[in-house]
Structure formats: structure tokens, C-alpha cells
């Protein structure tokens, strides 16, 4: 403390400015360490500006002396220091990047049986594939795989148009799928469409006129409608055709459960019979590596309905 000063303790220096006879301006200088601290920050800033990108100049900026080296497709590349390059390098050589690569190799070398049964591998698959899923699949199937009714299938239930084994799922991801049901506007009358609709609803225990549904069953199972050719005689569907099971009360393309009345439900299904539908999922074999497809397959399988 500066109180061992020879100055009179109670006398603070003044700047010499006096107003109104006795109003003085005191001068309490900064402590020296404080001042030096300030100079140090100035020096720090100067050094920093020299080393790192700092100042915008026109549409460019000062690049700084520091460089960073990382790999792009196996080639070394050196640029001025920047956080993107730092991230790129971290993704290649960082501790967690290395660990991730090891896990990736481990999972890639396992078959589906092993992966699905191994808690460690599944934990990794879940974390890893969530990222790929978000990039490639979520645009249609939504982040969590819930899909959109009438547009994209829900991947969380056990309703699989194209089959829910790992082989079938992998095939779907690799090659994509083209689903098609013809519209019956030229083949069936409006009444017949209603009858088919009544039958399909009866398969799911909805209340419908039994005469209507009986008539519908005849159309469904006969050559007139020919529905059984894809959906099977008992409406259980056919995975090789991508024809859905019609008996499990899961409706991916029509919001039957959301309908407000019996007649509304009937109308929705009948309209669907009239219009038919075509849906395409693109294949990802060209865009994703085998490992990525493997992860995604295991991930989708684990979402809840894998068979």
C-alpha cells in the first residue's frame, strides 16, 4: 500500500484547477501495474493481429502468419489459420475422430446379426446414423422417422410396405423403391369404389354396412377389382410389390384415423381407390458408402419395427 509515502496522507494531488474559490479537481493517478496491464493488452492485440486473420480490407482480409495443414482427399493442404481448417484437421486427427474411425471400422467388419445384438455397436450406430439420417432421410421421413401421412412412410412402426428385415431395408436404401397402385376411375363405378372402401374398412373392424362390404369383398377378390393380386386374398399385403397390409389399421397414405365420421372415412378410402397413387423413394447406393448404408440400415431397423 502506498501509505508509507512521504506525502501527507490526506493530501491528494490536484490538477491545479480551482472553481468558486475552493472547488478543486483532484488527480488520483492510475496505479502503475494497471497502466502496464493496459499496455500489455495493446501488445497482445498487435501480436494477435499479426498471427491470426484479423482485419477486413475491402472484400478480403489480413490473413496472418499462422498456417494450418490438413488433408483433403488424401492430399495435404496448407492454408492461413482459420477455424474451418482447424475443424477439418480435428475431424481427421482429433482424439474423438480417431476413436470414431475405430468404432466405424469395428462396426463395418461386423454382420447385422452381431451389430444388432451388441449394445456397444448399437450405441455407436444410433449416434452415428442419427447424423446421416438427418442429412439424407429426414427431409422426407422427418428427423425421428415419423414420416408424413399421405407422403412418406413412418419408419417407427412395424408396418413395412417393402419388408422390415435388414436385407429388405438395405435394399430399399440402396436401390430406392417405386410404389404404384393404379386408379380405378375408369374401371369401377362410384358405388363399387364405396363398396371396396367399406370392405377394406371392415378388415380393420370399422363399422360399415355389411351388404356393402360383402359386395366390396367380391370386387376385391374377383377379377373386377383384382386388388388381391397385390394386397393378397386376405388383404395382408405383399412386400415384393410394396403393397401394404390392409388389415392392421395403420394408414400411411390416408388419414383414416383422423377422419371425423364414418362417411368421411368411407369417402377418403373410396377416393384413394379412384385415384390410385405413385410414390418413389430414390436409391442411395451412389451417394452413400457401404458403411453408411449399413449404419442407416441398422438404425432404421432399430427404430421400432425391424423384423
Amino acid at each position, binding site marked *: *500500500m*502506498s*501509505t*508509507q*509515502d512521504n506525502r501527507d496522507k490526506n493530501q491528494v*494531488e490536484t*490538477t*491545479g*484547477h480551482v472553481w468558486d474559490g475552493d472547488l478543486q479537481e483532484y*488527480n*488520483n*493517478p*492510475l*496505479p*502503475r*501495474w*494497471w*497502466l502496464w496491464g493496459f499496455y500489455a493488452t495493446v501488445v497482445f492485440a498487435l501480436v494477435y493481429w499479426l498471427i491470426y486473420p484479423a482485419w477486413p480490407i475491402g472484400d478480403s482480409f489480413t490473413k496472418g502468419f499462422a498456417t494450418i495443414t490438413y488433408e483433403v482427399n488424401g492430399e495435404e493442404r496448407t492454408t492461413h489459420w482459420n477455424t474451418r481448417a482447424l475443424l477439418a484437421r480435428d475431424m481427421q486427427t482429433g*482424439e474423438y475422430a480417431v476413436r470414431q474411425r475405430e468404432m466405424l471400422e469395428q462396426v463395418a467388419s461386423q454382420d447385422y*446379426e452381431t451389430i*444388432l*445384438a*451388441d*449394445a*456397444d455397436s*448399437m*450405441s455407436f450406430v*444410433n*449416434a452415428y446414423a442419427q447424423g446421416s439420417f438427418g442429412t439424407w432421410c429426414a427431409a422426407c421421413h*422427418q*428427423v*425421428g*422417422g*415419423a414420416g408424413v401421412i399421405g407422403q412418406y412412410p*413412418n419408419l*417407427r*412402426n*412395424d*408396418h413395412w410396405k417393402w419388408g422390415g428385415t435388414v436385407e429388405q431395408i438395405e435394399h430399399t436404401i440402396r436401390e430406392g423403391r417405386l410404389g404404384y397402385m393404379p386408379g380405378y376411375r375408369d374401371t369401377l363405378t362410384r358405388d363399387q369404389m364405396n363398396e371396396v372402401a367399406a370392405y377394406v374398412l371392415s378388415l380393420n373392424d370399422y363399422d360399415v354396412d355389411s351388404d356393402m362390404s360383402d359386395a366390396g369383398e367380391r370386387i376385391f377378390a374377383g377379377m373386377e377389382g383384382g386388388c388381391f393380386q397385390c394386397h393378397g386374398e386376405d388383404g395382408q399385403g405383399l412386400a415384393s410389390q410394396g403393397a401394404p*397390409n390392409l388389415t*392392421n*389399421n*395403420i394408414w400411411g397414405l390416408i388419414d383414416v384415423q383422423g377422419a371425423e365420421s364414418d362417411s368421411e372415412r368411407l369417402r377418403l378410402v373410396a377416393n384413394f381407390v379412384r385415384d390410385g397413387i405413385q410414390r418413389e423413394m430414390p436409391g442411395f447406393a451412389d451417394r452413400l458408402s457401404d458403411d453408411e448404408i449399413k449404419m442407416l440400415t441398422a438404425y432404421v*431397423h*432399430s*427404430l*421400432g*419395427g*425391424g423384423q
Partner: protein
Amino acid sequence: MAQGQPIYEARIPIHPRSVKGRFRNLKTGILLLAYGVFFGLPWLRWDREYGPSQAVLFDIPNRQFFLFDLVVYAQDIFWLAGFLVVAALLLFFVTGVLGRVFCGYFCFQTLWTDVFMYLERKIQGERPARLRLSKQPWNVEKLWKLGATHLSWLLVAFATGLGFVLYWADAPTLARDFFSGDARFAAYVTAGLLTATTYTFAGLAREQVCTFICPYARFQSVMFDRDTLIVSYDQNRGEGSAGRAKVKAGLKTREGRQAAGVGDCIDCGYCVQVCPTGIDIRDGLQVSCIHCALCIDACDTIMDKQGWPRGLIGYSSERELEGGKTRWLKGKTLGYGAAVLVVVGALVFSILERPPVDVNVNQVRQPLFVQMSDGRVQNSYELRLNNVSDQKLDFTLDIDGLEGATLDLGQVEQIRLEPGQRLTVLARIRHDVEAGADSPLRFYFVIRDREGRIDPVEADARFSHR
């Protein structure tokens, strides 16, 4: 700015004299203990079933702290909050009763400054010699002595930096790597930074840290009351009615002095010379006084020499100084004391009761639920398991409280976790919900060890179906 005044105020160096006495001994004892702990702890080995064999190790990359038999994981960070609350309350409590004992005896700044001053004295000599040295022009002697002082400071500062770094990795390995240049960059930066700050704060800035930088110095006085113990000069006894006076003819005996109205203070200045913050305690309680009590030792020495009773400078309270009696039990003290006990109790309970596995249930919310083809509703969960015990555990998962529901872990059969290992397990629950049932339904995941080595751990969860 007028008359070319300097724009800064230079520090006026303080050259405290050394002193012997009980408080000095106490301070030295605490200092040795603190240094012993600080420098020795990283070298203490500790046998563990799992983990490093170092008693205290802060393993940042793996996010676990080893404190003897306790392993603290990142998710236990609230213990740190609890610890800090305890520390704060303890400071309030102790300060309310004993004044700034923390500053005087336990503060790093005070302890390290004390060591630096010791080195300074060993090299440059006692206060008069140092004063002389600082005034004398530069010559070989001054160069040598100051150089040696700063070198010794730097060595201690470096030891401090290195000592600190050793807590964050295996100490023997790191110490070797450090000098062979193989240690992590962060180790060098940290050691360098601590060397620099220690040198600056304990060597150069010293009491300025206490008076200008330290926030405690400012707010500790807020915790004072009239019964708080403070280092104080007994004005009445020291000054008498005619003030203090040196020992001279006619004023040699206490009786003589009292007859002349002169107090017991012989104005020898010893108390001022020993003060590490350079203040005069006889001016009364000051914010710069760190309550190190060295001035008490100084004055006691003088009083002993005079053959007069000790305590001209001593620990007393404001109330005592005014002739009252210090009250120890007061609402504030009891309140703080109780608060300390409660928080310590809660912290200890939390540490002792920590389940051997840390479970975090995360319900998948996109979608919240789906309907399965058999009509049941399915919810999905991510269970994050972290084995915080020191043995390998083989978990089983069950659910409780959701009558008739089934738990599906896919094809995963074995959930085996090494100590410290983390794992995410995907679980699905299918449930045939009664019409009209509330949503969400409450239930528990029950986590057991297959071999029954741990008590079952229950984790709260919700099942949604609407």
C-alpha cells in the same frame, strides 16, 4: 493535466521486518502444511480397482476427477456448486466470528508472498539492509542480490506452475515428459501462465493484489459486526491522555508514564515495520489489513522487553474495545453455522447416496408415440447409462409400473459396462393402453446388475399415447 504530473502512481516498495512470535509460528505451520499438501498430493499413489493409481487426478479428457476413493464425473458437477456454496458460507461464518483469518493465514496470495519475502530476506538481508540496497546505486552487489532474489522467485513460481499441472495427469510421467519436451502443449502453457502470475502477484504486486484486486478484501468487511475479532491497537492503553511517547528520561517505567499521562506505546514503529501491507495498525481498522497478526507478535515482543503486559495490539472486537464483552453466540453466526452444516450434510449425503450407475432416460419425441400393427402403442427411449462404480457391471433392464407393457431392446442381450464407461441403449415399450387412460403414464425403468452387486436403480419415465 497540469504541471507534468505522472499519469500513474508508482508502487512504494515495502520491506517488512521479520518477527518472531506465536502468530508467526502459526502462520509458518499453516504455510508448511499448505505447501506440503499442494506439492505433495499429486505424488501420492492410490490403489484403485479401476483408474489411475494417483490419489488426486483431474482427468479432463475423460471427464472424470479422481479424489481418493471418490470418482467424480461430469454429471456430478453440481457437487462443485455445493462445494462452492459450502466454501462461501464457511467464509461468511468464519469471517463473522474471527475476522479475516482467511486472508491472514490461508489465502494463496498471502502464503506465496510470505515465501517470497522469506527468500528476499535470506538473500538481501533484514529490512535495514534491504532499504539500503534499494537506495544504493547499481553495482555488482546490488545486481547480484536482486538477480538472485528474482531468480529464486522464478524458481518457486515455476515449481508452483509445474506443481499445479501435475494434478491433471499422471504426475511422474508428466514430470518426466515436461522436461523432455514431450508433454502436451496445454501443460507448458498452464505452467508458464502460473509461473508468470505467481511471480507477478507474489513477487511484484504483493499487497496491491489485496488492496486493489481482491474482491474478498472488499466484501469481507461487510460481514463484520461489533463482535467480530479484529486485530486492533488498544488506543486507550497505548495513547493515554497525552499520546504515545518514546522511552526517555522520566518515561521509562509504566508508573512514570502513567503519571505523565503517556500511554504504553513507545512509538518504536516495530508494528509498522513488520506489516506486510505497509500500514500502521495504530490508525485503526483498515481495508488493507489482512489480519495476519504479525503486528501483534511485534508489539508483544516489545511489551515483553519492557516487562509490561502483552496485548497492546491484540485480537479483540469492537465491542470489547468499547469496554464491553465480546458476544460469541449471535444470530448471524448461528445462522451461518446452521447453513454450513445443512449444505455440508446435503453434499455428503448426495456423495454417499450416489447410485453406482448413472441413468438418464430420454424419451424420443419425434414422434412421441406410434401405433403398431397389433394395435399397441409404442414409445421409444434412449437410456444413457454410465457405470460410476469401480467394477464391471452387467446390466439388465426392466420396467415397473406399467401393467402389461412389454420392453423391447431389439436383439441386444448383453449390456456390459466397464467402470467409467458410457453407453446409450435404445429401448422401446409397447403397451395396450386402456381407452380413456391418462397420458402420459408414469413408470420406471429398473436397472439391475445381473449378479446382484448393486441395488436396483430406478429411473423415472413417461409413456405417452395421445
